């Protein structure tokens, strides 16, 4: 059995196949060629004289390109390699495959080479939920091409398959009857084109052709240039350099060019199943990557702004001013069996949109974009007060209006049982989770800055600041659990009862700045204490809570993305050593995952498990995990734009030694930052000392 799964992709077109390069999809095997959330090939199987091949090796040449080395045989120990087969495949508007056979014998061979092809045109949602199709299939051979079609009313999708070598084409595939002379080879190109009627997305050829190995235009920049344009990292800590490089490569693969992006890219949420625009994931990843690849933030802001909600639509959970949650392009979105055209059921993405706009301006000085998006930002700020306060108590809360296919939990911890009392009870809806109030506070403060600086509206700025101050005062009263010294996870549907579990959300509150400074020390004590801190990072929920589970999705696992923002929050309140500790531990974990952090790993105590236990997940890399090491570099170096300058205030773990980040882009042009590791990180499984600073001396210089 060829079980290893190979994925290559270009934007939202991707191939998931086995290590032979074959696709044999079944309800439990989500393999195939996918584009715009539709499967265009569910079967693509190569045989020679009726036999499948064995895989010798697979080269992942680039994220859009793979090469498979194969030999005939049945998979026994001895492989009689008188014939070699090479398949080289590049994805883009379908895929281009170069099939080459090498005859190693001293005599000619006659072979029948066969490609079996079929498509079920399943929607991505159908692949997950095993639904039946309502449309009709049609297959035809025309001009030597095989057309696989699907039609449901005006919805039409087609896969067109052709070969460069002479082939006999039937409705199930292509056959090549060939003779290869002694010590010679035979080759053909196979082109598979994905076609969508009526969306301006119809191509007649795949993006790649023989001999063409470079990314074609709709990928703005090739991988080499992408890496070259990012800041350079120098360190005597070799694995940190490797993690940094892995992050940049994965980020390149995660670039997604939405139809409204004007050819530019934003970070999609995860590869391959979430190669689409997500409000929350695209914004968080843009925040993490601002010091490295600021153009991702610009495209995110423009694209999400274009799609901003404009009306009350219960099916889509849409309101005026609301920023979308998820966009999909498949059949079920088209026929409104799913609300993703787009779906707006997130309550954090709207305030975070304003946060990103301000942070983007602080780094880049790009006031034109802030001016261009003035109405979008105003509408987002307006949404917080006009549409998000479902309980009328001055806090953002959520309750879905689409009760069939909408999302129940609409902030980042979106699993059904993630928001719970200490005794395990689940609160009712609406729910006001605490981090949402932090985002609202931050959005108002940052919106005020932009109103004064760019929109020339000091009255709005004054109003937003007054509202933010009032929100902060109320929040520190209503969410604070005085006897325990941390903030409640949420307020229940009565608008008053405190959902009292201790959770990592307290760290996000520090990031937003809503925490009274008199309470910060107590909050930090909990974050770094034994109930929340595993030794690899801050757990989503504290050990000892009713629903705590070290491998529960949001009930005790450690999320690298969450930790990177907690580290930023710790820096904001001056807890440099604690931020360095989180950076050190998460980056230690990254090394054990070969530089690619998973979405989450188990919350087991580090003293129990030598390695972090990966949470099983279908998506890797995931954008905000990919961005986590980048944000941790920022927090370790203490990078902060102030006016036209970049402040560098490093606090590095001693294990890192020397660290240089060169050519950091921003409103200053390019600047270098240096730091030396001086923060002693204690042995795994112990809590850090609370004694104050031996942070590294700052060093930053302009060019």
């Amino acid at each position, binding site marked *: 059995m060829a079980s290893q799964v190979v994925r290559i992709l270009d934007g939202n077109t991707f191939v998931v196949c086995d290590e032979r390069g074959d696709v044999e999809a079944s309800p439990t095997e989500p393999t195939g060629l996918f584009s715009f959330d539709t499967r265009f090939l569910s079967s693509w199987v190569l045989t020679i004289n009726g036999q499948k091949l064995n895989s010798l090796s697979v080269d992942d040449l680039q994220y859009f390109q793979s090469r498979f080395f194969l030999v005939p045989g049945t998979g026994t120990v001895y492989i009689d390699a008188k014939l070699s087969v090479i398949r080289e495949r590049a994805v883009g508007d379908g895929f281009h495959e170069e099939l080459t056979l090498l005859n190693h014998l001293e005599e000619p061979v006659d072979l029948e080479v066969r490609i079996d092809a079929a498509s079920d045109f399943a929607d991505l949602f159908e692949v997950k*939920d*095993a*639904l*039946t199709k*309502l449309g009709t299939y049609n297959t035809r051979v025309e001009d030597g091409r095989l057309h696989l079609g699907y039609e449901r*009313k*005006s*919805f*039409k999708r087609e896969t067109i398959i052709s070969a460069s070598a002479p082939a006999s084409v039937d409705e199930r595939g292509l056959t090549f009857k060939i003779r290869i002379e002694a010590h010679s080879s035979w080759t053909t190109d196979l082109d598979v084109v994905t076609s*969508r*009627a*009526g*969306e*301006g997305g119809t191509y007649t050829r795949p993006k790649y052709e023989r001999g063409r190995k470079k990314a074609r235009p709709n990928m703005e920049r090739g991988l080499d240039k992408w890496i070259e344009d990012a800041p350079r990292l120098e360190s005597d800590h070799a694995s940190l350099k490797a993690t940094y490089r892995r992050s940049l490569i994965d980020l390149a693969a995660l670039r997604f060019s939405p*139809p*409204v992006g*004007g050819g530019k890219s934003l970070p999609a949420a995860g590869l391959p199943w979430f190669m689409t625009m997500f409000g929350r994931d695209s914004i968080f990843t843009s925040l993490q990557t601002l010091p490295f690849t600021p153009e991702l933030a610009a495209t995110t802001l423009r694209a999400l*702004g*274009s*799609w*901003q909600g*404009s*009306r*009350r*639509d*219960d*099916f889509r959970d849409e309101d005026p001013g609301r920023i979308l949650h998820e966009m999909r*392009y*498949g059949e079920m*979105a*088209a*026929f*409104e*069996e*799913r609300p993703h*055209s*787009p779906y707006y059921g997130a309550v954090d993405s709207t305030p975070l949109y304003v946060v990103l706009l301000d942070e983007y301006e602080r780094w880049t000085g790009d006031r034109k974009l802030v*001016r*261009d*998006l*003035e*109405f*979008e930002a*105003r*509408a987002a700020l307006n949404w917080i007060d006009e549409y998000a306060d479902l309980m009328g108590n001055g806090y953002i809360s959520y309750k879905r209006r689409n009760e*069939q*296919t909408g999302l129940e939990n609409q902030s980042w911890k979106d699993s059904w049982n993630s928001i719970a009392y200490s005794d395990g009870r689940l609160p009712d809806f609406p729910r006001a989770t605490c981090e949402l109030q932090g985002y609202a506070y931050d959005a108002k403060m940052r919106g005020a800055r932009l109103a004064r600086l760019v929109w020339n509206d000091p009255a709005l700025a004054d109003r937003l600041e007054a509202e933010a101050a009032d929100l902060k005062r109320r929040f520190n009263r209503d969410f604070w659990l005085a006897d325990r010294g941390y903030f409640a996870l949420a307020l229940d549907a009565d608008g008053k009862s405190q959902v009292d579990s201790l959770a990592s959300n307290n760290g996000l509150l520090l990031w937003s700045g809503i925490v009274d400074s008199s309470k910060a020390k107590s909050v930090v004590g909990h974050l770094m204490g034994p109930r929340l801190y595993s030794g690899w990072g801050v757990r989503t929920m504290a050990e000892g809570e009713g629903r705590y589970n070290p491998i529960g999705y949001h009930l005790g696992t450690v999320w690298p993305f969450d930790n990177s923002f907690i580290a930023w929050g710790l820096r904001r309140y001056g807890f440099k050593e604690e931020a360095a500790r989180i950076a050190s531990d998460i980056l230690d974990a990254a090394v054990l995952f070969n530089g690619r952090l998973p979405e989450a790993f188990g919350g087991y105590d580090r003293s129990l498990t030598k390695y972090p236990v990966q949470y099983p997940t279908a998506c890797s890399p995931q954008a905000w995990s990919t961005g986590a090491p980048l944000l941790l570099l920022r927090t370790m170096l203490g990078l902060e734009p102030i006016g036209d300058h970049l402040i560098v205030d490093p606090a590095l773990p001693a294990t890192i030694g020397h660290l240089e980040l060169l050519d950091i882009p921003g409103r200053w042009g390019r600047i270098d930052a240096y730091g030396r590791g001086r923060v002693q990180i204690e042995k795994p499984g112990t809590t850090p000392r609370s004694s104050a600073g031996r942070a590294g001396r700052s060093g930053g210089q302009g060019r």
Partner: protein
Amino acid sequence: MADATTRFFDRIGSGEHEPLLGRATGSLRIDLHDDGKVEPWRVDLRRGAATVSHDPGPADCVIHTDAALFDDLARGRANAMAAALRGQLQLEGDPSLLVRFQRLFPAPTGKRVTSSARTVGKRRG
């Protein structure tokens, strides 16, 4: 039937700045197909202000659709993006202008014309 369409264009073509359009600039032509006849509507956006005409000339974004479907859009009985995904609303040129423009359609009212026979989320077998 065309009343809703005409009222829609009358409403949006005031030449005043419309916040929903942000600072969008560009031109759309919407060709309404009805029984073999084509009626072009042209919308020029200048920094978020729209003017409407029947100029059949080239535009940054050209949309072809049935007059009846457009009437549903103008009444809030159909969704433009879902219709585009279904292939009922065909597009040439810059899709971002359609994304902007569709914000002007009203909120859903009444029964959805595109409701499906399939039970949502039902599993096979």
